[in-house]
């Protein structure tokens, strides 16, 4: 990754939307690896950056929908609604549909996630952010601390980020990248029980059951996984809306249009 400026001393009073190679814009983003040369070029040319390509956006919303369905149906699997008497058991499939919706959403989520992994390889720089934490980058850690202080109301003004802010990135990595993987592995291990000994799911995921102890323990950890994701969702949606209002850049619209726009043109 090449730097656009050699000079580390920023010139403050100037707008960032100017072709001035001596102006160090968005140093935090640049030094944590968030901003590429192209991004910075883009900012100079116009007021926004194209961050989330169409497949990422599409995935985001499909994934969000699938996980929402999985959480609702999963909750109902764990805590079935009161018995309904629509007809004889052969005429009624209430709980079966709930489970079916769970499995259908599970397949959507899984295929989507595989597609998302593929896009990490072929998509733009920001498509990789979900999968790699730049833990070796000292500046990144500094920005994590900064972002933490921002959320603790200890900073007056947030910084600008092109992709995810470092704190969000951590949350996404653990709760989503790892979380979805965990739910897929444990979910398909559970699914393999229904398909039976020797099925594809059993061959691929059956090993998980003795690993966690027994089938019941597997249900337990799968359910715990859900609650972890629910916790993430609460924070995530809140943070997205809050930052949309309080940060210096666009949030929700970014996940719709793909473009990150900035509300001011100060360098950082």
């Amino acid at each position, binding site marked *: 990754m090449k730097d656009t400026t050699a000079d580390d001393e920023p010139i403050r009073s100037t707008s960032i939307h100017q072709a001035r190679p001596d102006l160090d814009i968005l140093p935090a983003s640049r030094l944590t690896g968030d901003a590429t040369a192209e991004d910075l070029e883009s900012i100079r040319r116009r007021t926004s950056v194209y961050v989330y390509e169409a497949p990422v956006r599409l995935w985001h919303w499909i994934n969000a929908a699938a996980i929402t369905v999985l959480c609702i149906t999963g909750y109902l699997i764990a805590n079935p609604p009161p018995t309904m008497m629509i007809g004889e058991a052969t005429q009624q499939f209430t709980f079966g549909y709930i489970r079916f919706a769970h499995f259908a959403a599970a397949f959507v989520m899984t295929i989507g996630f595989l597609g998302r992994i593929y896009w990490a390889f072929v998509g733009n720089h920001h498509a990789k952010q979900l999968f790699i934490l730049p833990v070796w980058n000292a500046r990144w850690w500094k920005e994590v601390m900064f972002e933490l202080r921002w959320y603790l109301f200890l900073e007056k003004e947030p910084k600008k980020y092109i992709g995810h802010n470092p704190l969000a990135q951590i949350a996404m990595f653990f709760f989503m990248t790892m979380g979805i993987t965990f739910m897929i592995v444990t979910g398909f291990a559970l699914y393999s029980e229904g398909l039976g*000994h020797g099925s594809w799911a059993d061959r691929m995921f059956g090993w998980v059951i*003795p690993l966690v102890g*027994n089938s*019941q323990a597997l*249900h337990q950890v799968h359910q715990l996984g859900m609650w972890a994701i629910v916790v993430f969702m*609460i924070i995530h949606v*809140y943070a997205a809306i*809050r930052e949309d209002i309080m940060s210096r850049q666009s949030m929700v619209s970014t996940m719709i249009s793909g473009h990150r726009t900035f509300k001011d043109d100060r360098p950082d």
Partner: protein
Amino acid sequence: MPQLETFYDVMRRQGITRRSFMKYCTLTASALGLGPAFVPQIAHAMETRPRTPVIWLHGLECTCCSESFIRSAHPLVKDVVLSMISLDYDDTLMAAAGHQAEQAMEDVIREYHGNYILAVEGNPPLNEDGMFCITGGRPFVEKLRHAAEGAQAIISWGACASYGCVQAAHPNPTRATPVHEVITDKPIIRVPGCPPIAEVMTGVITYMLTFQRLPELDRQGRPAMFYGQRIHDKCYRRAHFDAGQFVEAWDDENARRGYCLYKMGCRGPTTYNACSTIGWNEGVSFPIQSGHGCIGCSEDGFWDQGSFYERVTDLTQFGVEANAGEVGMAAAGLVGGGVALHAAVSALKSAQVKRQEAASEEA
């Protein structure tokens, strides 16, 4: 090693006709889920195979596995003991005691070295130098190791031998230990259950006699033919599960209609066993059919998964006792509250900033 007589020899000498012998083979084939094409193979096996000596040891246990075994109807246990195997040592049933019993075991180990089956019921405790289970003045674990050394294969009967069972439940005061953790150099087939179904026990034995090999085992060393599916997969109440028709309380109207016991803590969805297919005591019933949920008695560690009336395990790791749902709900509630608070503070802050900005603009 002396010549062992074949199973067929024994049956013939006991006045069993060729015809009923073939009938027996047909029954065996169907009991094992094999087609009629296998009957000649089974017959051939029976005609040429000797009666296999069996040493049956007892460790820390409740003897329900033996009790279950003697309930076998297909085949009858008397036929197993008189005609199929040679049960040369079993403390619970043998005539001799003391020195004569110990001698019997030594003789079998010597005479049939490498050719006998070791069946283990119960398990060895390892704490207190093994003296929580003493036989012949010595720790049971010594006897187990000694008998295992010359065994061809080992059968771990029941939850005790397979997983540890109730005496290994927390805090496992005697350090009761499953057989495979003590004997690591022999093929071990685990036949879990508390106890296992009688016909599963004799089915495993007749399979081994018929095919002269261990049955196909799953990842946990259980015969796939009997433990390949969950109770839930073949439960006759499954239609009510799928319909969402559940027993909501003991002896309610739904219970009397035989609805699904999921909400009463049934562990059928997490338990691998043959109860919902073979049934108990000649298929008369099985736990769910008689109105109580499955308690998961053939699963590893089923005693420590929380109350039998909750189908999701309690978490004790965090000091408090609650299940995944309760922990998750609490966490989500906490975070939700935190978020609301954070939102409120954020709103106040930004209002403050706006006022300041407005003030400075005015100025």
